[in-house]
């Protein structure tokens, strides 16, 4: 169940972000959501017993997911704020700000890892690789609303996303309120990705690979691409979960390893294809 939700959310977010950035190689992790969420989670794991003792005691088991969720939202808002200038968002600046924030949160996460105890390290590693192992019916219930809202909301923006691919000015000339569309998409994507990272860690490449496969099948029209991505993303993650659970029985491999093993070579192959077609 969790796998289906997360797969759908990541794939739809990936498709939306690729459309927004007019770049088929974009990924939700690019704008800082995933790494921000990761930083917040690691901070809670390492400092939870000391610095945030009161908070941890109060929120109990919910601390880690909530922290990741808040961290993801905060980073996205920060990157978005950095990139918007006088009410307009420059997409290249948004991407570059995302890269800078990714580096910064990466360094901060590294620093926290450095001071962590051995026991904490195991927890960080396992969580950071991405795993559905921690999913319970309770955590499914917690994240469902945060995932369902973007899953329903993003496909409503399919046509604006289509003409946005022509360019922002062109979309404006066709009557699209470009700034509004960008804000809503960033917010919905932050919701979806923040929620998934909070329960399952960073599961890479689903958001990148799924829309790509689908474009080969149904073309780039977001009216087919977005619902299709939800279905295929859910299916792919379920398949990856099956592999993760069976390949090293009786242990369970973190699913992030499986998706990266399958996704990264695919990504490289895409880059090569792209190079061949462009020149």
């Amino acid at each position: 169940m969790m796998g289906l939700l997360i797969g759908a959310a990541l794939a739809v977010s990936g498709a939306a972000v690729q459309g927004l950035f007019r770049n088929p190689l974009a990924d939700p992790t690019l704008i800082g959501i995933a790494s921000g969420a990761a930083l917040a989670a690691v901070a809670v794991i390492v400092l939870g017993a000391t610095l945030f003792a009161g908070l941890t005691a109060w929120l109990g088991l919910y601390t880690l997911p909530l922290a990741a969720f808040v961290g993801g939202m905060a980073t996205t808002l920060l990157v978005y704020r950095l990139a918007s200038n006088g009410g307009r968002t420059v997409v290249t600046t948004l991407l570059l700000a995302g890269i800078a924030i990714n580096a910064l949160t990466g360094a901060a996460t590294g620093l926290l890892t450095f001071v962590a105890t051995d026991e904490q390290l195991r927890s960080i590693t396992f969580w950071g690789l991405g795993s559905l192992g921690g999913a319970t019916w309770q955590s499914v219930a917690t994240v469902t609303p945060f995932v369902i809202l973007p899953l329903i909301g993003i496909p409503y923006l399919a046509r604006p996303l289509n003409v946005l691919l022509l360019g922002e000015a062109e979309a404006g000339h066709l009557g699209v309120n470009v700034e509004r569309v960008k804000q809503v998409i960033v917010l919905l994507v932050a919701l979806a990705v923040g929620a998934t990272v909070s329960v399952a860690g960073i599961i890479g490449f689903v958001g990148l690979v799924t829309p790509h496969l689908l474009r080969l099948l149904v073309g780039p029209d977001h009216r087919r691409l977005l619902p299709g991505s939800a279905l295929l993303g859910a299916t792919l993650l379920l398949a990856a979960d099956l592999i993760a659970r069976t390949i090293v029985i009786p242990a369970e491999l973190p699913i992030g390893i499986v998706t990266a093993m399958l996704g990264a070579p695919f990504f490289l192959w895409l880059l090569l294809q792209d190079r061949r077609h462009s020149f």
Partner: protein
Amino acid sequence: MTLETLEVSFKIGPKTLLQNISLTVEPGQVVAVVGPNGAGKSTLLKILSGDLRPGMGKVLLQGNPLAAWPLRERARMRAVLPQQSRLQFPFTTLEVALMGRMPHTSGREGQRDYEIARAALAAADVLHLAGRLYPTLSGGEQQRAQLARVLAQIWEAPPQGRRYLLLDEPTTSLDLAHQHDTLHLARDFARQGVGVLTILHDLNLAAQYADRVLMLRSGRQIAWGPPPQVLTPPLIQAAFDIAVTVLPHPQLGCPLVVSTPEKINRN
């Protein structure tokens, strides 16, 4: 009822890009904007399309401030052809033309939208490429596909009546025949009551197809009027720093601008 600018000025920092420009695009007319690089032609077009807001002065569409029109309603009345469009995603040429129907439909495009998109592709002479993927087209073919998209956008007169077409250097990457085809199309649309404004580099195309010419230099208006009044050797010299001879066109009677290179005078 027109699309007009009233004493519009535009500055970026200390640099004045446009100063006191007043011009009117009337339905049924083709207005050409000419001038050297950096004269402010594209800035003027962006102000007319609503992409930039003038620092001073007004832009009026049908007598009301441009910014007061809802985006979608604006999009039903006027279409804008950009200089170039970098669409990297594998849409077919037909799908690109269909995007022009966006302001007129909600949800899926209907039968009529497909008919209009195909007619616009035929008008832009790219119907034979309808099934091809846009990124695989040549530069000139892409420009004509974009032309089809903006034509599809204002193919039929909206209930309010008026339509406007803004073209930013529509002939740049086209061969000679298609340059003339494109401006013929602009004329055809003007004949149907569309107000057309086009930025042109070729003064002879402006002479042949425009009803009025606006000549700019460094953001200032050098001249504004019918081609024979604007395309004169002294005014062209003032705008472009180049000496020319202007002859009557042997068949059309419009001005024919011929450069006289030995007298090039650049300071």
